[in-house]
Structures are given as C-alpha cells and as structure tokens.
C-alpha cells in the first residue's frame, strides 16, 4: 500500500459501480476506527489487489472469521486448534489467560491463522478497522502465501506452489 497504487486501482473499480458508500471520501478505503462487513470486503479487495498483482503472492483461498475476545481465549486454550479433545490443562490455560486479559496484564493476539485450504484467519470484533486491515494483509496474505509455498509444509499439508 506504500505507493498508493492499491487505492487508485480500487477507486477505478469503485467507479465502475461496485458499492461506493462514501463518494466524498473516495480517496480513502475507510475513515475512523469502526469496522463493518462491507468495509472488510472493500479492504480485502484492495489488499488482494496489491498482494496478487503487485507482490505476486500465491495464496490459498481465504476465509475470514469474525470472533469475540472470549472465542479468542478459547482458541488460545486450545493452542489455536478449532477442535480438540477435552482436558483439564486447557481449562487451566484458559483460566490463566482469561485472568491476565481481564486485568489488562496482556492483550490478545491480533491474528490467528490456520494453515489449511481455505486458509482461515480470525479477526476479533474488538479490533479497529486498521487492525483488521493489518490482519488481512499480514495473515490472510502473508502467512497464507508462506503456508502454500513452504517446502517443509509439503510433508503434511497440501502445500504446492501454483505452477507459473
């Protein structure tokens, strides 16, 4: 996004009639810290544009999931696994993380991304729009590209660079 090309391209698409919500601020993808689903799509489009066309990243399909902080704590306790067997030690971890979080001793991770196809990235509802944008750029494209192209992941995942 550094040279603003992404914005420009996106604006062109905008002019072609894909929902232009704020025509007066059409230079910006968003303003303020509030996010909503439309904005997520909009930002995703802009980030995708840069990631694929400019940087030439090769990624799995993306799935972005919106979760609450409690669900993030759940994920913490389960070491990021969407499903795990039941065990007291996860309860212990949850209790520890929860207390630290509630007391403000630690904040939660901004991103949690799962190496799968489609690549699942979690965004937290408490985060600002800028944070969501960073998570999308970093996790949904950065990590995702790494997952798909890393040689070592070939052993256990379906990591295969697309032939170019």
């Amino acid at each position, binding site marked *: 996004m550094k040279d603003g090309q992404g914005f420009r391209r996106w604006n062109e698409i905008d002019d072609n009639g894909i929902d232009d919500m704020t025509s007066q601020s059409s230079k910006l993808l968003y303003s303020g810290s509030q996010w909503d689903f439309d904005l997520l799509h909009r930002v995703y489009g802009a980030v995708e544009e840069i990631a694929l066309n400019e940087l030439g990243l090769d990624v799995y399909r*993306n799935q972005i999931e919106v979760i609450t902080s409690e*669900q993030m704590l*759940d994920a913490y306790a389960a070491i990021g696994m969407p499903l795990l067997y039941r*065990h*007291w030690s996860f309860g212990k971890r*949850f209790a520890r993380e929860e207390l630290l979080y*509630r007391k403000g001793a630690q904040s939660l991770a901004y991103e949690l991304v799962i190496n799968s196809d489609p690549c699942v990235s979690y965004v937290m509802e408490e985060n600002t729009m800028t944070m969501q944008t960073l998570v999308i750029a970093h996790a*949904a494209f950065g990590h995702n590209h790494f997952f798909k192209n890393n040689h070592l992941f070939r052993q256990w995942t379906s990591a295969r660079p697309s032939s170019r």
Partner: protein
Amino acid sequence: MHVVDRRQNPKSKSLGNRQRFLRRVKSHMRKAFTDSIRNRKIADLEGGQEVSISSKDLHEPTFHHDSNVGHRDYVLPGNHDYRPGDVIEKPGGGGRGSGASGSADGDGEDSFVFALTSDEFLDLFFEDLELPNLAKKKLKSMASPTWVRAGYSVDGSPQRLNKRETMRRSLARRIALKRPTIKEVQALQDELQEAIDGGDAEAIDRARKRIAEQQARMRAVPYLETVDLRYSRVERVPKPTTQAVMFCLMDTSASMTEQLKDLAKRFYMLLHLFLKRHYKSVELVFIRHTYTAQEVDEETFFHGRETGGTVVSSALEEMLRVVKQRYPLDDWNIYAAQASDGHNFDHDMGLTLRLLQQQILPICQYYAYIEVNDDQWPGDSVLWDGYLNLLSQHANFAMAEVNQAADIFPVFHDLFDGGQKKKLTTN
C-alpha cells in the same frame, strides 16, 4: 473470499475443560477459600472471586532433552566473554538431577491465580451445607419429572439412533452370516487376474465361480439391516422433592442499631441465597418484629426501616399463626432462623421460652438463633441466657453469635454444616 461471523457460535467452548480443571483443583480451592473467607463481605458474593492456589499440583509433565548429556550445537549471539568458535562447558557435573529447576514453560510462579465466577464461588461456598433433618414428609406433587437414559430399544426417532450399538450388531451379524469383506472380494479378483495372466483355464474358472459365489452372498447379507438398528431410550422419572418452609424472624426494634440490623440482614441474605440455590422448593416466610410482629415480603424485610420496642413472643406467635394457616405439619418441614440483639422485655421472657419449648421447637426440624452483638462479651443478653437452657434440652436448637461481618460466613457454615448439627455456645 468468505467472511464468516462466528460470534453467534455457542460461547465458552472450553466450559467443559474449565469444569475439569475446577474439579482437579477443588481441594486446593477449598483450602485457599477457607483461609480467605473470614475477610470477605457479602457484597463480594456478587462479583467473581480470585483464587490463588499452589501451582505444584498443576504441573504438567513434559518431555525434554537432558541438558547434562549429549552433544549439542547452538548458535548464540556471544558477549564480551565469548567469541565465535568458543566451546562452552556443560553446566554442572553428573548427578545434578533436575532439583530446583523452574517450570518447563519458563515462567516460574509460586501460585496459580485465576478468577472464579460468582456461581462457581457460591457453589463452593455452599458445597457441604444442607438443611438438617430434612425428612421426606411428603413428595410434592408439582415435582418436575426428569428424563433419564434407559438402555436401548429397537425403534425410536431417527435422531436417537445409537450408531455404536447399531454398528456393533451389524458387525456381529455380518460375521455370523459370513458376509465377505470388500478386501476378500478384491483378493479373489486379484487371484482371477493372476490366473488370466497365467493362462490357467481351470484356475480362471474356479476363481470366477468363487467371485460369483461371494458376490451373491454379499448381496444376500446386507451391510446394515433393520434388525441391527438400536435407539437410545429415555424415560421420564418423577423427581421427588420435599416441601420445606423457612421462617426468618428478625428483630427490628430500636435497640438494634443500624449496624446490627445490617449484620442480621446479611445473615438472612446468605440464608436466602443458600436456600434459593440448593432447595428449589423451599418456601420462605419473612417475619419482622418490634413489639408487634408482622409477616412481610422479601423487599420490606431486607429494606424496611420500621422500628419500635421489643417483644420476641410476638414474632413466635405470628410464626405459629402462619404455620396453622398455611403449612399443615403433616406436609411440611419447618425451619426457623431468628436474629436479634438479645434484648427482650423481661416480662415477655417467660412467654417466649414457653412458646418455644412447648409449641415451636416440637414442630421445627431445626431452629437457629443468631445473636448480633457489637460488644465482645457474649452471654449477657436476656435472650442468650434464656435460650441456653433450651440448648441442652432440644437437639434441634442451635445458637451462635455474630459480632462483625467477618463472622457471618463461618457462623453460617457451622449452623448448616452438612447436617452435623453443632451447638455453639460461643465462638
């Protein structure tokens, strides 16, 4: 791209894990809890509680390399003592063991601190408390039935299909009727292919025949049949509950200072909370008295500001009236808790004791007297002295003294301690 809103998903996925964890540390929790309970206020019950327990038993064993043996290469950043290429001695000699090593994940801590929700806290607090002598006088008709599992049945609704039991029967039937597995058929087909390749006409014929035989058997014996199906069965079982009523008698006379009333109210709040949580069908009757007594609702009982002289017998008479009117003795277990500062008009003591001894105590399962007092010398109040005689004569009578808010928890615990009635003369 796909955006999924997961916020609607059921919350606290890790609740099961949390319960496992709490079960595991229960004994520690109880200990930490009793240590700190004396310092707590009732208001603390509202919010969650922080519990600190020793992390010793929460240790999770891990496998890791022994740092004392083996050959190891590290890339280290170096400092003014070491230069590239230096070889660093292994720390210590043999037999050092892992004596005072920190926790495996690096953050050594003496105790593990976590927060209990107020529900969990109350569960723990009321854990071994119960109403003493709760005889099952009559099963309440409004008892709600519960569903319990009751084995398996051969029919039922599809969502009750028990896959494990069904497959178990399917497997047994397939073995008994010698249904060939796909693998076996495949093996025969390989055999046939081999025979064809070998050009042995007789073997081809034999293999073809066997394959046809097995395939026919496979068709005749289905993989899954209606006779295999098993459904989980549930039954309605009526859940018996016992009818009990708790009378809360509180002195609100002028001699009760604001602070004493507050102590008494705190005790009743605790009692109220306890009964509401553990005995769904226990009814509560609130009676407050000055020189006259009156039955009031919960709101007035806890927040009312009425005041006046003191005649204890008026409350007992009111209680008897309510019992006669609404709670037939054959059907109800009757409990009473009386809180007072111990003052009573002298001429009323005879009547009070008579009422208690002859009418109230015989019909009560349990009668607890709590004296709220701001002085340090118990036993010099009129009621306390009068009630001391009852203590030896009636097993269902108990008395205790509360001097400050911190006493309430322990006194409450002692009064309702798992049916083991304790008589406290002083504490």
